[in-house]
């Protein structure tokens, strides 16, 4: 039976069919749905880990314990998990260990555009790269086999367009893979220098064997066509190239590390001009050039952003697309915005009013950078807000700390903000950290985390108490506050910033999109009372619209959170239907 599946959904199906038993992950676009779909299979134990490093460690443990195990993350998550990855390459596996990493060319939802293949090469871990949903499933099953055959962790690399596109997938049955016996083996699993020196030799020998495998496996294959043009490509770029070149010859690489040198030479000998089509880094291209094969790639195509069939036709074949209806200049840009009713809006309104320097973090609240709230000064990576506020204090002095706050979400704080806070306390900093506790991991689409009190399956579990946690690491000033109580929030932030010791403000209000969050229904503006002072516009609420002649509320968007009523000095907002707000 064939079924239409997202790439991420097909990965989950592959994990299921491969008989895997354990999956751990931290959400991150575009990888999140892999684990959400895995959680729908009761045969697989699945969980949200506090961060990607923990997720990979859990998966390594499960593998050593004898199970087929997996974890999924976005490209920047692999940076967090790099430490266990590099050494798991030395220990190897017991049960198959497959790591799914989703890159984001074009940065649809990311802070950088790094290429996972480079990290995999540095870690000496093989990489498969599927082009569509069917391959997502097939390569996943293959990856478990390779992992066990060569005693190595393996990465399956996705990109946004593979992870988030749907294609037809032929479903199969779940394999019955019994737990492998666990045997104590310090020479393999305890990486002290004496053991690690021996294991490094194993790693290098394994890479040679994997290169041989890469030459033989049908994952890498030649599709002979017109021999004038030969295209070496993989992943989503294969699809673009197929569409652009039609009947050229292709060397399609499903295994992109280690590369199949023999096969590449065979292909090169059979075609006149060779192009390498790959998004982001010249990974395949550089390898071919090192082998002395004159390929063309990045000289013609960009290092930056996503590719498409038009781009390839234009840059390589010199075929311009038909005169495009190029009228984007007529259209207003539509940046993402905080939703109506978003609890973060109240905090950023206050931070802007207080003219504070705000070290920011990764989540919905990063949108606090955009007009009109424009509060955030920095955003680097998960957890960076806390360490950066401390660094700014140490560089600029204690007075600077009186004008600075770090802002971080609940899930991000658990992911890697807590370590920064411990650093502040230990190193005698006086920073103020605001934790935006909206009871969920918001930006990636509502996943549970250790602060929500529920597991990935929605089962109740022990909830991290943020107040106690902060107190336990030595923060004496911990205050909890509703970000929609603007007056109190302003007072609390002023006091905590002024305090000559570290403090934490927990701005607590659930995400407006959570099902249990109920508001009172839409508001409207009484035009007789409204003086058009536009104070309400400073909230950046998408439901409040400046019509030029007047300001009005879009009743289809307004949820009735009433934040605007707190900034309006003229009581101009009233509830549709009559009740005064």
């Amino acid at each position, binding site marked *: 039976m064939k079924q239409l599946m997202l790439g991420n959904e097909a990965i989950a199906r592959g994990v299921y069919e491969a008989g895997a038993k354990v999956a751990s992950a931290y959400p991150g*676009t575009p990888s999140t749905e892999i684990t959400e779909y895995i959680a729908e299979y009761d045969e697989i134990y699945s969980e949200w880990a506090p961060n990607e490093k923990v997720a990979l460690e859990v998966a390594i443990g499960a593998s050593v314990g004898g199970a087929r195990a997996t974890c999924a993350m976005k490209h920047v998550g692999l940076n967090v998990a790099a430490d266990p990855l590099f050494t798991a390459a030395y220990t190897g596996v017991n049960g198959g260990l497959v790591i799914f990493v989703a890159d984001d060319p074009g940065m649809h939802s990311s802070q950088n555009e790094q290429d996972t293949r480079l990290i995999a090469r540095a870690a000496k871990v093989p990489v498969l790269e599927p082009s569509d949903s069917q391959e997502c499933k097939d390569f996943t099953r293959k990856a478990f086999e390779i992992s066990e055959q060569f005693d190595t962790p393996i990465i399956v690399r996705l990109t946004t367009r593979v992870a988030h596109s*749907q294609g037809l997938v032929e479903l199969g049955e779940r394999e019955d893979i019994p737990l492998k016996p666990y045997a104590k083996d310090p020479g393999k699993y305890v990486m002290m220098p004496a053991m690690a020196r021996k294991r490094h030799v194993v790693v290098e020998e394994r890479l040679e064997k994997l290169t041989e495998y890469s030459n033989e496996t049908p994952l890498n294959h030649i599709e002979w066509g017109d021999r004038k043009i030969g295209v070496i490509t993989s992943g989503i770029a294969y699809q673009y190239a*197929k569409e652009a070149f039609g009947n050229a010859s292709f060397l399609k690489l499903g295994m992109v590390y280690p590369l199949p040198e023999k096969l590449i030479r065979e292909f090169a000998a059979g075609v006149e001009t060779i192009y390498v089509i790959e998004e982001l880094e010249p990974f395949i291209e550089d390898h071919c050039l090192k082998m002395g094969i004159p390929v063309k790639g990045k000289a013609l195509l960009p290092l930056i952003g996503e590719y498409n069939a038009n781009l390839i036709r234009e840059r390589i074949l010199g075929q311009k697309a038909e005169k495009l209806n190029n009228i984007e200049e007529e*259209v*207003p840009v539509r940046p993402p915005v905080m939703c109506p009713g978003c609890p973060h809006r109240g905090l950023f309104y206050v931070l802007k009013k207080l003219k504070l320097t705000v070290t920011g973090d990764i989540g919905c609240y990063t949108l606090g950078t955009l007009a009109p709230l424009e509060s955030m000064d920095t955003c680097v990576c998960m957890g960076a807000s806390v360490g950066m506020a401390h660094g700014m204090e140490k560089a600029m002095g204690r007075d600077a700390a009186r004008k600075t706050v770090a802002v971080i979400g609940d899930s991000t704080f658990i992911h890697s903000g807590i370590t920064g806070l411990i650093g502040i306390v230990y190193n005698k900093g006086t920073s103020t950290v605001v934790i935006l506790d909206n009871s969920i991991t918001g930006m990636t689409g509502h996943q549970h985390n250790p602060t929500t009190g529920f597991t990935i399956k929605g089962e109740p579990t022990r909830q991290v108490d943020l107040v106690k946690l902060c107190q336990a690491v030595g923060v004496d000033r911990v205050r909890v506050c509703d970000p929609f109580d603007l007056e109190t929030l302003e007072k609390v932030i002023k006091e905590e910033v002024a305090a000559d010791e570290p403090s934490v403000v927990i701005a607590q209000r659930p995400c407006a999109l959570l099902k249990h969050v109920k508001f009172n229904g839409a508001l409207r503006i009484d035009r007789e009372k409204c003086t058009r002072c536009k104070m309400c516009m400073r909230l950046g609420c998408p439901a409040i619209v*400046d019509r030029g002649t007047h300001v009005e509320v879009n009743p289809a968007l307004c949820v009735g959170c009433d934040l605007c009523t707190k900034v309006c000095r003229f009581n101009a907002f009233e509830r549709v239907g009559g009740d005064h707000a």
Partner: protein
Amino acid sequence: MKTDVLIAGVGGQGQVLASRLIGAAAILEGYAVRTGETIGMSQRGGSVVSHVRIGGESLAATVPFGQADLLIGFELCEAVRNLKRLSKKGRLIVNTQRINPVTVSLGMEQYDAGAMEETLKRAAQDAIFLDGYSLAREAGSVKAVNVVLLGTAVGAGYLPLSRESFLQAIRDILPQKLHDLNFAAFDKGYELGNRAVEDKTAQIK
């Protein structure tokens, strides 16, 4: 028979479901299908595009520029934003409802709906403009606007798929309690699409 469809709108309008329904209907009629979605940060009130490619060989998940056979605009300026992907012979279905981007609400940019409608009319000979929200409301919920627009596309013959396949796709994908609402929404759109094409044919005669 290869048909490339683009669905353009604002996060939250139900584009992903619309592309799933087209995909499911296409499979029922024996076509290969591939879609590309926007999921993630831009969903928060940002521009959202779904690409749906029906029939043909294994293809990339995105429709190249100047190649879409049908552009379904869930919102006026999002339709204009994606015109560059429409082929010269491509057809248009546009929901005339306008959702102001925050840049417009704040008075930083203009939203010239009149000029946009003109641009759209120039870009495609076959174009249907409709107030999809009103039809969805009549059917029972404004949320069904996505299904209204699919109905219009099928009713007008702009999608090479049958009404029956879509009704089956609705049955297969949506929970039962939503079936009647979505059948009604689909048929509201279907009738309008049907009528629009008949009127046009009558005019030409």
